[in-house]
């Protein structure tokens, strides 16, 4: 695996994903129960997790993993049903953007965002639901 080639692929694709996540969050701001943008963010964050893990960018994969879990819980409950949900999503997006910018600037793995990761953890006593099946066509295609 050529690290430079895959770092560049990561930078290209992650930048696109983050822009798309940003647009989806604006839609969720209007309607936190909207299924399609929530599914989209879930899928893109899942993709960020895979790329980060493949390159050894633990900060990216850890944050994306926790975010994916949180998104999974919201999807299972039919939407973002907590007042802190959207601010947490925007904060997570900013952290991921900072990490991608750091990779671009230094060429090395980015620093973690432990406070954001901790904020994404389930509340004490909150059960871990079985992960919902991936997006269904009717909801994703729009």
């Amino acid at each position, binding site marked *: 695996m050529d690290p430079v080639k895959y770092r560049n692929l990561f930078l290209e694709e992650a930048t696109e994903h983050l822009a798309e996540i940003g647009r989806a969050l604006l839609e969720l701001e209007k309607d936190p129960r909207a299924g399609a943008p929530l599914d989209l963010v879930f899928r893109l964050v*899942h993709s960020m997790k895979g790329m980060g893990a493949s390159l050894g960018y633990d900060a990216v994969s850890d944050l994306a*993993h926790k975010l994916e879990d949180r998104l999974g819980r919201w999807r299972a409950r039919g939407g973002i049903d907590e007042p802190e949900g959207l601010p947490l999503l925007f904060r997570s997006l900013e952290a991921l953007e900072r990490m991608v910018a750091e990779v671009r600037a230094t060429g090395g793995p980015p620093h973690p965002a432990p406070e954001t990761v901790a904020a994404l953890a389930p509340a004490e006593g909150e059960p871990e639901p079985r992960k919902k*099946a991936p997006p269904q066509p009717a909801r994703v295609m729009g």
Partner: protein
Amino acid sequence: MAVRVLVADDARFMRQLIREIIEAEGFEVVGEAADGRAVVEEFTRLHPDVVTMDIVMPKRSGIDAVREILALDATAKIAMVSALGQEALVMEALQAGASDYIVKPFKPDAVIATLRKVVEKEQ
């Protein structure tokens, strides 16, 4: 004759990585698909020996695509591509008829061993 593989993943990064790993071992990537609808279309067109199928994809999930492909060809061989935290979905895919699974981040030896096992599997 090289094993003909169809690679389905919505991330270019992952498609490229799988391609690189399996081509280095003499497999032939005959096609790529970036969503769950395209993989069914490409399967019908290309008739690959094996499909690597991401689970989380747009338009149609990898699990739904497995069901559709197997409805078209009950002998199709499909290896799911999964990640940490997707154990329940992998089980669902195997119950739907997928042959086996590979895990991200990829360990090249494990990817190759799994694909060889899937291709050699009796129906």
